[in-house]
Structure formats: C-alpha cells, structure tokens
C-alpha cells in the first residue's frame, strides 16, 4: 500500500481531510466578526450560504450560459484540435510547416485576444464567447493528439507493414487506440481552460453568465455573491472534470491516466 510518512493511505484519510476543512470553515465563521471585517471584504460562510438561499434562481440562470459556452468551446476545441492533430501527423507538408510554429502559437496569451473576438463576432452573441473558450481550450488538444497519433514504436509500424496492414487499418488498430490516453490528458487540460475562457469572455462582454455576475457583484460590493458564483463555477469545473475521468477509467482498463501535457 501507499503510505505517507505518518502512515495511512491517501484516500483512507479522506474523512480527516473533510474534518479539517469543516474546522477551517468554523474558524473562518468565528474570526471574521472577531476581526470586525466588513462583509464586502470577506463574508462569512453563513452569509455565503444565505446568499445561495436568496439568489439561487439568479445563480442558476447565470450558470446556464457559462455552462453552454464552456461545453461548446470545449467540444469545438476537441473537434478542431483532433482534426488539426490528424492533419499534421498525416501530411508531411503540415508537419514541416505548422508543427514547429505551434509552440509559438501556444505561447500567445490567448485570453488577451478576447476583446478583439468580441468586437469581431458581437458582444451579445453566444458564439463570440464560445470562440474565446474554444481558442483557449483547443491548444492542448492539438499537442496531445499529435503526440498520441505519432508516438508509436517504429517497430510496431514495421510489424504492421509485414502483416499487410494498410494505412486505414494501421490508424484504426494502432494509432487511434494509442492516442486515447493522450486525448484524455488533452480533454482534462482543455475543459479546465474552456471554463477560464468562458469566464474571461463574460468579464469583458458584460451581458450574462457567472463571469458577468461576478463583475456586477463586485461593483455592488456584494462579496457573498462573488463567493457564491465562484463556488458554482468550481462545482461546474469539478463535475465536468469528473465526467472525463470517469470515461477514462471506463475506456482504459489497461492503464491509469497520464498527466496532461502543458505548453
């Protein structure tokens, strides 16, 4: 078993972790009034919970646009990323021209283009925000699909040739399954980035969504609502991430997940 320096397995200790955070919450609740901090600086957990009760409907209605932008941006990122990966792996021309410059593309801070995209595609359009989420999310998908489709042992490809495999079968039986762990690493990185993209787009566009709600709450000095929004966002991220990890476990009984490659 995996044991830490003080004994106990990492997941056997989950009840300790929960207990620890409950204590922290209690401490938080007690310390804020003790220090006399106003709620617009730091609300207490009770005030945040109260906010959920008061504005549950508002939070839900602002959650949905953010959720759609994230999901659509992510799916678009996956579709475009995987297609680009395939193109680069299968076309010598793209391999020589685009692949080396991808590193440059990757180092552009893509959220910085958000205002431009909003001007081009329209502030009130869902698709302008989806596009921003997509731009941020698609990069790890390209890199991970290139690696997944191309990192196959040369000897395996040699064997495939002597087995009489054509290109299509080689793709189906070797390259595609080989790419699955890498694709999942890409999904995990992309979904987290898509959330960031959607929220940043809403910060800038100021129309609707949890990002917009945070800006509004900030202007109203309503810190409990900011915290509530962040909690909803985090729950959404975590839920989407969990779905991907679940799928990964289901699809790959032969191995555990690998870490997303970052660039």
């Amino acid at each position, binding site marked *: 078993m995996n044991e830490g320096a003080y004994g106990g397995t990492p997941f056997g200790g989950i009840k300790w972790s929960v207990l620890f955070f409950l204590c922290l919450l209690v401490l938080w609740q007690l310390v804020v009034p003790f220090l006399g901090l106003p709620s617009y600086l730091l609300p207490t957990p009770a005030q945040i919970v109260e906010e959920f009760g008061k504005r549950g409907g508002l939070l839900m209605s602002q959650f949905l646009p953010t959720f759609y932008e994230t999901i659509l941006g992510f799916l678009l990122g996956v579709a475009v990323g995987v297609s680009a990966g395939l193109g680069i792996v299968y076309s010598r021309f793209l391999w020589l021209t685009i692949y080396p410059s991808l590193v440059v593309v990757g180092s552009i801070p893509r959220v910085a283009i958000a205002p431009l995209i909003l001007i081009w595609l329209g502030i009130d359009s869902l698709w302008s925000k989806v596009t921003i989420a997509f731009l941020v999310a698609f990069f790890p998908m390209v890199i991970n699909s290139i690696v997944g489709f191309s990192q196959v*042992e040369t*000897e*395996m490809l*040699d*064997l*495939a*040739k*002597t*087995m*009489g*495999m054509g290109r299509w*079968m080689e793709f189906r*039986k*070797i390259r595609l*399954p*080989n790419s*699955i762990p890498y694709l999942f690493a890409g999904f995990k990185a992309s979904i987290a980035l898509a959330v960031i993209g959607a929220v940043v787009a809403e910060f800038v566009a100021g129309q609707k969504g949890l990002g917009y709600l945070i800006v509004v709450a900030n202007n109203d000095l309503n810190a409990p609502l900011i915290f509530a929004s962040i909690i909803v966002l985090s729950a959404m991220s975590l839920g989407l991430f969990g779905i991907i990890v679940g799928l990964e476990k289901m699809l*790959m*009984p*032969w*191995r555990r997940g690998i870490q997303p490659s970052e660039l």
Partner: protein
Amino acid sequence: MASVIQYDKVRKIYNSGDDEVVALQEVSFSVGEGEFVTVVGRSGCGKTTLLKLTAGLLQPSGGAVQVAGAPVRGPLTNVGIVFQAPVLLAWRKAIDNVLLQVEARKLRVENYRKRALELLDLTGLKGFEERYPSELSGGMQQRVSISRALIHDPPLLLMDEPFGALDAITRDEMNLELLRIWHEAKKTVLFITHSIPEAVFLGDRVIVMTPRPGKVSEIVNIDLPRPRTTALRDEPKFISYVRQIRKSLGVR
C-alpha cells in the same frame, strides 16, 4: 537444398546529416530451406539492418536480397518477425495481441482463436491469455510476440535478438522452446544475437559479423547433434566452436 534467402554483395549506407555510415559492405551468403541460421556480432555491426533488408523494410544501397527466388522490393508479408522488444499493443490482451496478425490479414479471427490458444500454451502462457502486457513479465511478453509471429504459419521466421532482454535462465529455456517449435513446424529461421553461446546452441550455421563496416568475417558450420539439450553446452566440441567464434570476433 533450395535457398530461401540469398544475399548477393549487399551494401547498405545510411546518410545521417553529412555523415555516411556504411552499415553493411559486401555481404553475401544464403539460407537454405528449413535451415536455422544464426548471425552473431557486436552491436553496431549491421545485424538489424540485415534483418530489415530481408523483410523489405529497408532497401539495399547496392547488391541484392532475394527471398524465395524473388528480389525483395517492399515489405514481405509471408514472414514472422520478432524484435528484441516485445512490441505489443498495451490495450490488447495477450490473445488479442496474437490475433492482431490475423485481423491485419483480414482472415476470420474465429478460425484462428484455437490456434492462438495452442501457441500461447506451447510458449508456456496457459492461463495468461486474458492478461494485458503490463501484467506480464518481459519473458512472457516476448512469448506473446513469438506466438504472434507464428500464428499465420509463415515459412520464414526473422528474429532480432529476441531473448536479449531476458535473464540467462529464462533465455536458455526459451532457446529450448524455440528449437522445439522449429523442429515441429520445420521453418526457415534467421536468428540474430550478440551471444556467441546462443548462436552456437541454436544454429546449423553461424554467420560471424564484424563492424565498421559491417561485414561477414566467417561462416561456421555447427556440426552438433539435434535435438540439442542443455548438456551440450558442456561438450568440448560446443566449447571449441564458441572459442573459434570469439577469436573470429576479436574478443580478447
């Protein structure tokens, strides 16, 4: 005896940057039908290059390679190949790795399942058919790889240091098993190794190669009785073959 493989003044030059590496120079010999020929030499003397030329995975820079009477122009499909690494697909169970050979050839998998199980049994993997490669030891993975090379019943087996990564004990066992399979199936085998005793133990003939540039320095006929047994390794004749080849390789 008809020759299955014929090398005629084979040359292979690699261009890496500005450098030219002469991997093989003037290699000529032939392998007869049903013969077990071993190739021995230090690493870098062109053994893998020779095997890839034979399988049509590389083209010679000069000379000619003929298999079954025809010049090799592209990848041969009527062969079984085993590399030093097992080269298995991590997402396929042992049996499905063996059956990849069948699927690739668009044969009916159901007709070959029984044969695949027999081969896994023959190579000592009974009970491990449903295991993923990550659940098998290196030796077991290599047995899967050998089963995969045999399932389509190719007349020619090409093996590139297949037991190089195994411990000495497992290696000796695998040698005996391979000889048993070869004896039953009567195939032609080209077996590459860097172990002199292994080359002598297995081969009807040993092709001794030296590097820079890779060429054949000597061909030794191994006149030892078959079936070969472990006890043979202690025979004076076996030892003198080993000594002869060691000398030919310039081992001090």
